[in-house]
């Protein structure tokens, strides 16, 4: 049985009367890529910042590697890599000096790893931070977050500013790390990223976890989008099947949303003499909207 790398138990954070997160409870197993999704303001960053001891919880507890996140923060930080949504560094430094400084703070010789990651991300380490674009600063953040070969990587909206090719390289790096046993907590509101990367997800709404599921179960339980092409001379081609919503017919084209048994759906379609059928998995956006409506 896998052990839990992150354990969050009834964690709450209030800024005065304003709610940050409330009674958040979930755990992340070793070697897992765990998605953490929700719109802006749902409490994703607050949860992450509490895990990293950047802010102190109002109540509840959080543990990483079995250690209390607040009391043993420095010891935990030795094995945690963090990539914030917006990366900021000391503007007057060169990339190389900054990364060496980060390595010094971990008390490790990370020169090989820095060179390897910089090369893969096509990062020029001789440039000053202030001269870098937003995307290149993000690359510096990725290298700074991974240079000490952490056991847990925490990513908060990690891909903003990266072009699609660089996003792919970044995801490849993450998968390689994960294959080596690194656990990843991946927070995002770009759901396709989560869909692509994660094993399990927690959906956050207004500071609370409203769903915690395996990503395949989540899809299986959810709606399917169906597009049908039928012979246009068939006048009566309505479907009488439970679980159908948003039924639209435009000439020979029919589309609807379906939730239920796929076999029953096929049986119902058969009399329509369909010339083409397209059953789409719902995107996480659609699943997500389901929870938000």
């Amino acid at each position, binding site marked *: 049985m896998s052990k839990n790398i992150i354990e969050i138990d009834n964690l709450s954070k209030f800024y005065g009367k304003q709610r940050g997160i409330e009674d958040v409870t979930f755990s992340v197993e070793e070697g897992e890529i765990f998605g953490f999704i929700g719109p802006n303001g749902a409490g994703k960053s607050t949860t992450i910042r509490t895990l990293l001891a*950047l*802010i102190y919880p109002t109540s509840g507890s959080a543990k990483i590697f079995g250690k209390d996140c607040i009391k043993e*923060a420095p*010891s935990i930080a030795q094995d945690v890599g963090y990539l914030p*949504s917006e990366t900021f560094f000391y503007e007057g430094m060169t990339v190389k000096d900054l990364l060496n400084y980060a390595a010094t703070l*971990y*008390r490790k010789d990370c020169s090989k790893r820095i060179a390897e990651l910089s090369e893969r991300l096509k990062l020029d380490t001789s440039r000053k931070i202030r001269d870098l674009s937003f995307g290149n600063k993000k690359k510096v953040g990725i290298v700074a977050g991974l240079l000490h070969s952490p056991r847990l990587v925490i990513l908060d909206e990690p891909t903003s500013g990266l072009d699609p090719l660089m996003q792919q390289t970044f995801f490849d790096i993450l998968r390689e790390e994960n294959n080596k046993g690194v656990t990843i907590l991946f927070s995002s509101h770009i759901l396709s990223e989560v869909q692509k990367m994660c094993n399990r997800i927690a959906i956050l709404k207004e500071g609370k976890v409203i769903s915690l599921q395996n990503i395949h179960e989540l899809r299986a339980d959810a709606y399917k989008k169906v597009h049908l092409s039928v012979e246009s001379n068939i006048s009566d081609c309505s479907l009488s099947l439970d679980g159908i919503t948003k039924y639209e017919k435009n000439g020979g084209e029919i589309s609807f949303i379906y939730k239920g048994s796929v076999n029953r759906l096929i049986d119902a379609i058969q009399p329509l003499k369909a010339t083409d059928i397209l059953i789409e998995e719902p995107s996480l956006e659609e699943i997500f909207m389901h929870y938000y409506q």
Partner: protein
Amino acid sequence: MGIFRFEMKQYKGSVIAWSIGISAAILALLSVSAAYTKDPSSIALLEGNAFLEAMGVNPETFFTGMGIYGVYGSFALLAGAIQAINLGLSIITKEHMQNTADFLMTKPYTRKRVYLSKLAAACCCLLITAICYFAASLWAVRAIPGQSFSFTIFFQLYLLFPLLQLFFLLLGMAIGVLLSRIGSTLPLALGISFGFYLIGMYSSVVQSQVARLFSPFKYFNVNIIQASGGYETGYLILYLALLTTFLISGYTIFVRKDMKMVL
């Protein structure tokens, strides 16, 4: 060691500039003023001068080497206070202003160690300035002709410089922890330093002991040091109490404070 060395590197240029500036200023002022000491009959001209009263100048001792050092040293104290409070403010607030707090605070260092490393680096920066100021002061005071020189009195007068720098450094760090998002630290540093300096001048003019309590520049009276060769115990205790308060409050708040999110 990492944070200490990093901070020292960051403030290298500023420390060199302040050290040269303050040392050159005291050298120039004392060299020019050396000429006054040759004409003690000028004492009468200083009697009843409101500006000199405000500066806390004693006409009886003004035309001695230590007297001139005590007066012009107060300008150096003001400059040193500005350097120290600005350093204290910026070494703390820069992490928030540059949004680098997330980078630094997610490294395997306790908050306590971060604060103490920054404090140690700032103290080291000020020590460099203080050593330069000491060398420049000693050389300039010794160069004043025809004066008997007491190293004990000189050292007690000189010591006001590092003592006040430490006071303003800790005050700056405590304010920096409380008001972490200060757009520019220099105007605030200038405002606080000049404010205290003016309160000190006011306390000298009206001879107000209450006003004197609110100006660290007047905690150590140069005339008393020259006359009795020591600091006033009551004000020394007040100085130490405030120093301890700034240190403990700055440290405690820094260790317990939430690091604001980058917006």
